[in-house]
């Protein structure tokens, strides 16, 4: 009896491993091996295009501590992440609540707000370069009409990064909206009805019913958003190339510059490992702070 149970269990395990194997092979070849290699390379002087490498020990990491641009780039990445994620999630949540009503033609509005997500990022970047153009750009024209001062946007080292943040919010909100909308559909409507009977205002219903009940999804969206935003590369590459005055240079772009423009694969690998640690740290921080406050429906 027990031996046939053990056999069944072993067969189940074998099946599980067999099913996992294909993706494990892919992960090993395209993720784990490159990570190991980048740790190895970060301890060497590696020149792109040259097969010879030289042992350096910790030198690349020491350079990193001394690199003014690295700290600036790290700060830019943090600024981008800490503005883009909260703002686009707030916008997405408000949009999702608004889209959750049963107004006529709602499908059209939903598609309209989701539309930016479907535009390829390079095309979106080029589009916003035009929108932000200081001379003939529509955004400056609109500012003038409203009687506000015109800005140089991508040419101004104070405004270039906020400009990319604004376009990222436009690009990401629709995606987050869609995920949150699906979560909203699962919130039991009797909760709202009860609240309405008790005379609770719309704002309080949002804060005290909607937000707690979609909090698992919000948490998911925060993690996804963090992963998206530290990976930002395409907009920087297309719109500003890191300039002006390095004000839009972010970690992934700096890694690319070092690896491919300067051929300095060793240093680029050290940067990539620093990024990996920074991201793991940030995700860890999010999970111990926000993760614990997530409210799962039906749990105590």
């Amino acid at each position, binding site marked *: 009896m027990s031996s046939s149970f053990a056999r069944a269990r072993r067969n189940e395990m074998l099946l599980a491993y067999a099913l996992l194997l294909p993706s494990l092979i892919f992960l090993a*070849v395209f993720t784990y091996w490159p990570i190991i290699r980048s740790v190895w*390379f970060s301890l060497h002087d590696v*020149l792109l*295009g040259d*097969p*010879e490498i030289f042992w350096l020990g910790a030198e690349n990491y020491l350079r990193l501590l001394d690199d003014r641009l690295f700290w600036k780039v790290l700060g830019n990445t943090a600024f981008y992440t800490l503005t883009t994620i909260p703002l686009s999630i707030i916008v997405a949540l408000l949009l999702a609540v608004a889209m959750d009503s049963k107004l006529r033609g709602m499908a059209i509005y939903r598609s309209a707000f989701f539309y930016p997500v479907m535009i390829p990022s390079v095309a979106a970047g080029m589009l916003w370069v035009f929108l932000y153009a200081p*001379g003939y750009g529509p955004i400056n024209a609109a500012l003038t009409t409203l009687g506000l*001062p015109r800005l140089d946007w991508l040419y101004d080292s104070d405004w270039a990064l906020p400009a990319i943040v604004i376009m990222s919010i436009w690009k990401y909100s629709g995606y987050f909206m869609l995920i949150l909308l699906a979560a909203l559909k699962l919130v039991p409507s009797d909760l709202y009805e009860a609240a309405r009977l008790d005379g609770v205002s719309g704002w309080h219903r949002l804060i005290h019913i909607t937000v707690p009940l979609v909090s698992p999804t919000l948490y998911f969206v925060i993690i996804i958003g963090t992963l998206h935003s530290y990976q930002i590369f395409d907009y920087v590459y297309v719109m500003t190339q890191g300039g002006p005055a390095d004000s839009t240079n972010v970690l992934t772009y700096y890694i690319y510059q070092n690896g491919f423009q300067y051929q300095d694969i060793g240093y680029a690998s050290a940067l990539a490992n620093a990024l990996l640690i920074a991201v793991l740290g940030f995700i860890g921080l999010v999970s111990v702070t926000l993760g614990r406050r997530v409210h799962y429906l039906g749990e105590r």
Partner: protein
Amino acid sequence: MKSTKPNMMRRRLLATGLAAPFVSAMPGILTPARANDTVKLQFMYPVGVSGDINTIISNMIAEFNATHDGVEVEAIYAGSYDNTEQKVITSLGVGEPPALWLPINSSLQTFLGLDALEDITEQAKADDIYDDFIGGFLDTAVSDGRLYGLSYQPSTPVLYYNKDAFAEAGLGDAPVTWDELMTAAQALTIRDGDALKRWGLTIGGGWHDWMFEGYCRQNGLVPWEADKVLWDRPEAIEALEFWKKMVDAGCMAPASTWQGSANDFMAGSTAMLYHSTGSLTNLRTSSPFEVGVAFMPKRKQFGASQGGGPIMIAKNQSDAKKEAAWTFARWMTNTENQAAWSRATGYLAVRKSSWQQPEMQQYLAEVPQAEVAMKQAEYSGAFLQVPAYSRARDNLKSAIDRTLAGEIAPEAALTTATADTNREIQRVQRRQG
């Protein structure tokens, strides 16, 4: 290049094991089994200026293929100079470089550092290259007396100016000195209250470090030597202080992009523009006003650095390919093609004989602007030929941008950029030592 640093505590490691997945070549599977004698060459080239350069080059290559049996050149448009260099270096890394490529001349030491270039000195001597090529242009592909490329599209920055705007502002000829440049820029700037309608001057962004080297030369300094940069010298600091003065006076755009600055000029949003002579034909024919071309204004003297690049041939390929590659490079730089290329773009023809051609003489009579950069080339030299030039350029651009944005003083910016760059150069040389 040959500096020896004996006391390096380094172990030489063959990266064979680590590089294996990278190199995972499958030539056995991919090689076509056709038994025909056509030598196929890949040629990677950039578009480095304003205008439809891509079509012009594609047409030249199509003509070459139509007239040369046994050789077929595949034209690979690779983006900007930077993109082209990266593509070539990546393909060198996996041991399959293109047969030829066209990089910026500053990358010479980078490619030599990778042992990637075929030495073409002997072929060039047997041919008429050393007699007919204009010496200054050929020099940008020379290292230690050996030739590693055929100069194809040399250029210098020139001062483009909107003649209609000059007439409106009551200005006569183009400015000749820095002081006159600033006076003109102030007279040409138009503001409507706070809103800017037209800049007096824009220095084409993305390559403003190239223009800045010109400013150093105009102030009597070649701001680099074989193994270091000299941007912290007083002549260079003075040049940056002058830029800052123009930005503070509100007559020069503090930042721009390469294509954007050319578009701004054609749209009339800036009255004077520093841009490559390679953009001449496009700016001249696409602007709705008369375009003047002048030397970049001088301080102590006229001066400019040569941009553009030579066609280089890969060392790591079969002799048949090398021979075919030489035929192609030679054809691209022959007298007729260089004259036609120069007329179509504004790049400077590399051969003396091209400038003597009747069509060229007639063109110069009609478009005297085309001769300006050629005359300015007398005062020009190679652009930033140091190891690690790519990082050096970014360091300088960053220093200039931060200064013009008001984040840092000119001297502090240039001193930091110089120290950072020279440390990088030493790091790269240690590797080669």
